[in-house]
């Protein structure tokens, strides 16, 4: 059983640092924060999912993406798409610090899978409509929660900090399911890159556009924020000059080394696609 852990403030910290706002919206759960702020010479929308110890759904109080979070993200992102219909497609920055999807009987009954899909759909639709969608990993990017909030972005950026991690399942749960000790799991991660949790190992998979080094992730100063802004602007410019799909994740030298099988599958599939 999971124990009560200290609630992460990374999401709200970075929302405040980049927008000087808390992003609380009327009629939206307090866990989903959206703020508009200038980025370079254009407005951008920043979206974070944050913990709320008073969330009315008890299984989504620690920064999880639950039922209302998934659907609220979908509504907010779709509002941005609708507003951009006749004009500039503004950048959308997903600030990612999500501990997991909400685990619960009620969540399953009410379709948390659809709620998370709705958020992923909205982000993917924004990307396809021409909004530069950038995910900035400032804390945990775990499993289904990351699929809902961030993984559909054109570009993935991450702060180089020990608390920033990406994985398919929490360490304790993964150890139980694979019948290994946490120590064994960590050792395995050193040898097998996709099994690791830390962001430096993740960077070796070639999925990240940039690992932002030397930034204080918990208490960012002016120079830290400036550095992150520049990284976001560079990623937005790169997005606008590229394709609207996720193909850039297979283009880096790291991807060619570590995701060689992903590339090979697609190459041979294209050869066989049409009958000889």
């Amino acid at each position, binding site marked *: *059983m*999971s124990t009560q852990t200290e609630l992460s403030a990374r999401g709200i910290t970075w929302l405040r640092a980049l927008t000087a706002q808390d992003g609380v919206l009327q009629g939206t759960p307090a866990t989903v924060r959206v703020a508009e702020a200038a980025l370079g010479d254009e407005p951008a929308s920043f979206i974070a999912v944050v913990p709320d110890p008073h969330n*009315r759904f*008890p*299984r989504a109080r620690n920064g999880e993406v639950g039922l*209302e979070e998934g659907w*609220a993200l*979908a509504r907010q992102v*779709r509002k941005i798409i609708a507003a951009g219909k006749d004009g500039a497609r503004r950048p959308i920055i997903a600030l990612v610090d999500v501990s997991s999807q909400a*685990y*619960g*009987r009620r969540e*399953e*009954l*009410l*379709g*948390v*899978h*659809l709620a*998370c*899909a709705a958020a*992923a*759909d*909205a982000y993917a639709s924004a*990307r*396809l409509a021409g909004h530069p969608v950038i995910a900035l990993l400032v804390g945990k990017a775990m*499993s*289904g929660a*990351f*699929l*809902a909030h961030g*993984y*559909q972005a054109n570009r993935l950026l991450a702060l180089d900090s020990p608390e920033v991690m*990406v994985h*398919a*399942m*929490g360490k304790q*749960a*993964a150890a*139980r*399911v*694979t019948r290994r000790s946490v120590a064994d799991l960590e050792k*395995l991660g050193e040898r*097998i890159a*996709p*099994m*690791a949790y830390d962001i430096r190992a993740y960077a070796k*998979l070639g999925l990240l556009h940039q690992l932002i080094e030397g930034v204080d992730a918990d208490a960012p100063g002016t120079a830290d924020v400036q550095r992150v802004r520049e990284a976001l602007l560079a990623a937005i410019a790169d997005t606008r000059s590229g394709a609207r*799909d*996720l193909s850039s*994740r297979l283009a880096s030298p790291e991807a060619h080394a570590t995701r*060689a*099988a*992903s590339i090979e*599958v*697609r190459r041979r*599939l*294209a050869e*066989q696609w049409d*009958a000889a």
Partner: protein
Amino acid sequence: MSAVAAVREHRQFLGRTSFIEMGARERARAILDAGSFRELLGPFDRLKSPWLPLQGIVAQSDDGVVLARGTLDGRPALVAAIESIYQGGSMGEVSGAKIAGALELALRDCEQGKPVLPVLLLETGGVRLQEANLGLAVIAEIHAAIVALRRHVPVIGVISGMVGCFGGMSLAAALCSRLIVTRQARLGMNGPEVIEQEAGIAELDASDRALVWSLIGGEQRYAVGLVDELLEDDAVAIAASVRTAFAQGLPRQERSAQVDLYLERLAAIDPQRPLDGPGLRALWHGAARS
């Protein structure tokens, strides 16, 4: 039921070909027009997981996904079928890339004015934990491909059982334009065992099969409008239903885009009060679908 009707029903049952008992390759063949099945990246292409042997696990030479091109009522089609008996139908780098890559090629053809009808046979526990982050990454690519492809042709998902569809792939199912299930199917984000481990046995007793199916089983999902068709375990009926789903064309609004409807529904839920399968059916009965 009259004796005559009972005999007729029994004969129908005997005449039925089980879809659930088929392997992935047979399932794909059963969906496509007779004689049109052509496998892509089959076992002889030997595209295996590069990660399982490093962990002392023998890798199967199709990595548990069968891709087939063929036709549905004469129209070009693609079937991606997950082999549930290999590693629980889990998505590794190669198996996931096969599905994502095939959907990406179908998208390319659609964009060039050559529609391809995509069918996903989803029997999977989600990410293969031995390939963790690469499984998660490729599932995001599958989601991306479905959302892009759905703008051109309906994407049809089938969950027949017995594994069901879980984890990140439950999102892939939810992104499908139409979902076809049997009573044996389950569709949920977190498997019952994971919920029991994460939230405790008081939250969910994973060994209580009747309870699990009452929450996430095919019949329940159909009754509350989270899937579109509920069928018997009959290969002929499932193949026919896939054709009907394509004939219906694109839905007026994809289920995963019905934001107002679901936010309204959630607003009416009091999380402090108990809620079970039948209780939700009373609330969400006759779910609106175009």
